[in-house]
């Protein structure tokens, strides 16, 4: 296939359009310009003549992304659609073997799973609220830690390279490995945390339970922050390095305090990286499943049950796949709405991204 003309044509076409635009802008045309335009018109005519090849050009990008789209469809869109579908099925151990033939039960799963007075629905709303609180605290703490470390390591401190590597360790470890280590540490009988608190420091007389009851919630927060703050750190560090030093120098000359520099220079200049990072982090943490699963096993303590583990419990511990599906659908809708609002209100618009 003749590749060369294809590659060359588009820039020409673009240029001619650009020139025409600038000409329009100028208003009046000098005779020489008029000649030039005529020549351009000729070129444009040639472009029109080769429109057949142009259509192929236009299809080419689609061909490039087609494989990815097919995979996206297979891996995300179809399972998601099926998930919505099973939310309307009576899916349990009787029907799971041939689940496409499971009976259609309409909104029954939504009623069971989402009725605030029912045994399952009440758990759902409690878990939803708990997950929101957990996400806010964890994202806030991960962001604050990441920001602090990033600002610190942008300035020329000694051992900067070493510290950067060190800070990224939790992120480099597989999630499971990290969480298992934490589970050992928080063990009541012989975990290192209680050892330090009771035997070494003598702050407490008796080792409290960390993985049972109310403390379990805070343990989940601690492990989550530990696991996710390096991501915030990494993204913010990259963003901070794009801020030219002379801005700070000028501000310092004008007598701006470090805090003032942080709020008026640093934050606004990394705003774009910040808002994107916060969105991703919130979604990851809101949907967190691995950490509670490794810490508490298939069923989290009631005081620390988050929404993803609850859906898992309903589906796989109680075999209520339909109810699990109904909860997933509600969660999906809630996250899509929240993300849409966030993107609309907070995210920089397309234009600003090119600044």
């Amino acid at each position, binding site marked *: 296939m003749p590749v060369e003309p294809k590659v060359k044509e588009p820039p020409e076409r673009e240029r001619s359009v650009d020139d025409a635009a600038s000409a329009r802008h100028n208003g009046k045309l000098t005779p020489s310009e008029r000649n030039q335009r005529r020549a351009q018109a000729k070129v444009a005519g040639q472009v029109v003549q080769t429109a057949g090849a142009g259509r192929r050009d236009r299809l080419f990008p689609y061909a490039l992304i087609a494989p990815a789209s097919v995979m996206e469809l297979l891996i995300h869109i179809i399972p998601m659609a099926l998930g919505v579908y099973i939310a309307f099925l009576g899916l349990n151990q009787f029907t799971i073997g041939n689940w*496409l033939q499971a009976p259609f039960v309409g909104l029954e799963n939504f009623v069971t799973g989402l009725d605030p007075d029912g045994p399952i629905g009440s758990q759902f709303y409690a878990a939803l609220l708990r997950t929101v609180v957990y996400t806010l605290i964890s994202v806030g703490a991960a962001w604050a830690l990441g920001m602090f470390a990033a600002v610190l390591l942008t300035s020329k401190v000694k051992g900067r390279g070493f510290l950067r590597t060190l800070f990224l360790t939790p992120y480099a470890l597989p999630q499971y490995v990290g969480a298992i280590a934490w589970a050992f540490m928080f063990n009541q009988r012989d975990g290192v945390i209680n050892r330090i608190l009771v035997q070494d420091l003598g702050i407490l007389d008796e080792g409290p339970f960390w993985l049972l009851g109310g403390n379990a919630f805070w343990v989940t927060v601690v492990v989550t922050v530990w696991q996710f703050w390096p991501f915030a750190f990494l993204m913010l560090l990259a963003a901070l390095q794009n801020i030219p030093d002379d801005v700070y120098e000028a501000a310092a000359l004008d007598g701006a305090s470090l805090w003032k520099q942080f709020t008026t220079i640093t934050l606004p200049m990394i705003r774009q990286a910040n808002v994107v990072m916060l969105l991703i982090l919130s979604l990851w943490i809101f949907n967190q499943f691995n950490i509670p699963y490794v810490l508490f096993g298939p069923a989290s303590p009631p005081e620390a049950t988050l929404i993803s583990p609850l859906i898992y419990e309903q589906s796989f511990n109680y075999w209520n796949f339909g109810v699990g599906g109904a909860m997933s659908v509600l969660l999906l809708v809630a996250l899509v709405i929240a993300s849409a609002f966030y993107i609309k209100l907070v995210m920089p618009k397309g234009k600003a991204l090119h600044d």
Partner: protein
Amino acid sequence: MATTDRLAARGGTVRRVTTLPLAVLAAGTLAACGSSPAEDVDTENISGSITYWASNQGDSVTEDEQVLSETIERFTEETGVEVELEVIPWNDLQNRILTAVSSGDGPDVLNIGNTWAASMQATGAFLEWEGEVLEAIGGEERFIGSSWATGGAEGETPTSVPLYALSYSLYYNTEIFEENGIEEPPGTWEEFVDVAQELTQDTDDDGSIDQWGFTLAGASISNNAHAAFIRGLQHGGELYDEDGEPDFTNDAVVAGVEEWVQLMGEDGVVSPSDAELVNGAESVEQVASGQAAMVFDQAPGNVFSNRDFDGYAAAEMPMLDVDATGLEATQSHVAGINISVFENSDNIDAAVAFVAHMTSDEELTYLNQEFTALPVVSDLYEDEAFQSEEIQLKQQILEDHAQPMPLYPSESQMETVVGTAIRDLLADVAQGGEVTEDDVREALATAESQM
């Protein structure tokens, strides 16, 4: 580059998790599992390979792999069929099976806890043992009646075949008993609690108890469910009513569960730390290390021997009254492991042949000895390999003091909701809370409403 890959990988994990139940099910689009009984099998001319999922019976997955690979080698030598073995820990086994059932893409042969048999049968994904298939394993008569009965719901063709038989019994640290001048294991529940209280001691006088009378795995869902079943029956009440409906809040079950929870509460014979123990082996270790004197377990032999600990003895489980009969004399459920063939298998012949091999007299002798379990076929009872005191005791418990767990399709959910409720009650007690009869009843009522 590495970072972006990582990010993508993480994003993938998280998204996969949100849609976990969905994605897993989605994998099943291609699975069309019709329920046609495969009556004709030819176990003579077999070839190819099969996959086998084994449950974790020994102290570790590696140990099980060693034991089973010997059996598999003999099978491969005889038939030429390769067997790909995977030993799956208990925590994951049920999920793995469910995923296999929903996707239609599973192993050819697999182990199940026999209490799940009716639940698994209800999925319709497993081969029914009748006709030629049943003949291939030597017929129903070879097997002990109580074990064979665990193969599925009453009155339906079984979808699993017994492999190992087990029962609960009381194991105690003989050294601790001797030191305290206790000559006999307790017979009644009252004596049991008394002995346990006597043995709960601060042996080094540092102000904190370091030897507990009894130990239990408070966070083990299935152990808790078994306890509810056994203790409930001893009080004369079952977990299901006559119509097969869940009935967790009858007085007998409540009383039985309360007794279990109060071992850590009012009786104070169980360390609060036990509320965090996830599996039975961890509580068996407490007995081996001398941190606890007694434990109820099905097969602690491997854990003990791996620790070179032989200062233990087995006894009957305590009952409310030593002369109890019928349901009140229950000491254990008919525990055990069954083996099933996945109906979707594309090598059913070899799969059935493998089950026949596993349940042959020779292999059952070998396997049950390795896993300190009881044989499931009558002929082996006379075998000298099974004449030890412990095995004899278990045999007697299975014969006279064991009831099958309820054989209803919702049995596995029942285990989960009841076991979880008890776990949470024990967690409350461990954190210093007081649990009353009303709390127990309420927790069980909540569990029942989730069925």
